[in-house]
């Protein structure tokens, strides 16, 4: 039996007071952070509030921040959370309002699932089956990892976009939307992809920061789901957005020079077509780049950008060949789906 110090971020809604409180707890080998919170509540301070239920990493109730990172407190052992002697800091989930102590208001998080309509829309004219809607194992295999979400909110809590934008759908709802886009029993694949690429706060607002992948206790890989949604949305023709233009502009620069073409990318992201047709908001967006460009000019960086560095000639030739080969191969195989398959295989298998 050893003593462990816990520093808990508390909030009292009656006095609207936020404060930190320290507790020392006797811990056994294998004891979890949640066990320790229970020990505090039962033996030291009955007013400490937190959510919990199953204690087996299934219900998703007890996600909270442990040393700054969101995780299930029932799945986190004291020994893995702290070096011996260091205190463990426990706080409520981020990006949501605190109700009391470690309890947050999850309404905003759950509302995003409704917004993304994350329920099955069966094919029309099909009578509901007598038992469940069935699909083949092979059809389920590719997205099975995304079906394991327990709605604990750890990903939303650590999401860097949700931190600055209430309107972002967030990793969990987007991963759930992905799950239905992939589901052969669902009839709304196109509509979903269109909504997710055109909605403010949809797939193109993700920063690719990997916070959600790191936080998820169930290997849902939410960010990878968002990335695959992007690929599928482009493939389905939903390309009239900044994200797709940025991707296409970036990729065409690499095709030509083997390297990112910083000179051309802003114009391509705004959209050459939009600019030529006199689209006012496109011209405004272009103007937005001006102060930045002037600063780069002043710091003598623009000259370097204007030189448009590239791969050497031999390299460019090979790079262009690869682009052409992949383009041709795409007509015969869904190579991008295979790329995601390899990613899930190694990402989840490697754990």
């Amino acid at each position: 039996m050893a003593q462990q110090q816990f520093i808990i971020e508390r909030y009292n809604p009656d006095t609207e007071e936020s404060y930190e409180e320290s507790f020392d707890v006797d811990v056994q080998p294998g004891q979890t952070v949640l066990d320790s919170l229970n020990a505090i509540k039962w033996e030291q301070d009955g007013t400490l509030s937190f959510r919990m239920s199953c204690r087996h990493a299934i219900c998703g109730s007890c996600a909270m921040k442990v040393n700054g990172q969101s995780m299930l407190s029932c799945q986190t052992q004291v020994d893995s959370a702290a070096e011996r002697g260091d205190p463990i800091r426990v706080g409520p989930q981020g990006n949501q309002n605190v109700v009391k102590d470690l309890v947050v208001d999850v309404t905003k998080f759950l509302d995003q699932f409704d917004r993304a309509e994350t329920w099955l829309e069966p094919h029309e004219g099909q009578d509901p089956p007598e038992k469940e809607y069935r699909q083949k194992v092979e059809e389920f295999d590719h997205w099975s990892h995304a079906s394991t979400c327990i709605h604990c909110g750890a990903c939303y809590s650590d999401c860097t976009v949700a931190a600055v934008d209430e309107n972002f759908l967030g990793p969990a709802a987007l991963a759930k939307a992905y799950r239905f886009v992939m589901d052969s029993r669902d009839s709304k694949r196109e509509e979903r992809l269109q909504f997710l690429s055109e909605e403010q706060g949809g797939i193109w607002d993700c920063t690719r920061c990997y916070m959600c992948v790191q936080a998820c206790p169930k290997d849902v890989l939410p960010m990878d789901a968002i990335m695959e949604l992007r690929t599928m949305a482009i493939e389905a023709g939903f390309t009239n957005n900044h994200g797709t233009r940025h991707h296409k502009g970036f990729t065409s620069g690499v095709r030509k020079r083997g390297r990112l073409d910083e000179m051309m990318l802003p114009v391509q992201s705004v959209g050459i077509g939009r600019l030529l047709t006199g689209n006012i908001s496109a011209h405004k967006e272009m103007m937005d780049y001006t102060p930045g460009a002037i600063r780069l000019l002043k710091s003598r960086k623009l000259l370097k950008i204007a030189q448009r560095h590239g791969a050497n000639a031999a390299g460019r030739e090979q790079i262009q060949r690869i682009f052409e080969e992949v383009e041709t191969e795409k007509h015969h195989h869904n190579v991008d789906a295979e790329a995601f398959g390899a990613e899930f295989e190694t990402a989840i298998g490697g754990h």
Partner: protein
Amino acid sequence: MSKYAFWPGCVAQGAAPELYTSTLAVAEKLGMDLVELEAAACTGAGIISDGEPYLQDVLNARTMAMAEQMDLPLMDICSTCVGVHRLAAEKLREVDYRIRINAHLAPEGIEYRGSVDPRHLLWILLEDVGIDKINSLITRPLEELNLGPFYGCYIVRPERTLDFDANPTRRNSLEQLIEILGATTVTYDGMTKCCGFPILTMNKQNSLTMAGTHLEEAQSLGADALVTPCPLCHLNLDAQQPDAAKVIDRNLNLPILHVPQLLGLAMGIEPEKLGLTRHVVDTNRLLNKIGA
């Protein structure tokens, strides 16, 4: 002399040229022999893979195959490059997938065999060069400076690709470097978060709120400057800092240093040679503080 296959990345040869020049200056002092991969392609930075993940994997397999063929360790100087390289290396452990990808490398007479362990200069400084060697070259200890680390996402996440358990120094590599050089670390919430750069052209408001929030936090905790291993972060934190200040409605004046610039200063290299005069946020006050 230690020799590396060196991938500079696009931004170090474009909008952040001071990263490239300071890397070469520091490498010379440290006796590192850098063989630049001039025929290699951009990593795709996660942007090519938005629509063409397979293509991005082929391009990165090719770069790693080049390093493998030269029998040299691969060195990146960009958090994004090293993260994307490592993610590709992870996927290419899948043998069937690697065989498929290698079909595109065969016409060039190369093959990726799956042995490359891409590393950032920052890691190489701690893992290969070592504290003793760095210490022996410090002529201008940075004792006066309070420095905030700013990592850039891909050098800290996802942890499964970064081998933190086998290489524990990678977990807090920036703090270690800062302290080896005699400076004091300012720790703050934003130091491992996103700078916002990837969505700058998609959602400027969100992007610059992120940059501004982290800058303001570090500045208010007394940081004299931030140091970053990622030139993309540098673009949002330095070149966009005046706009970020407007978005969050605060005064910001926080110089942002690249890792080799910081090391170079401590080793007595001239600020001009390290490109410190080519920043958007003026570095003079910082340089005066250490008498450089």
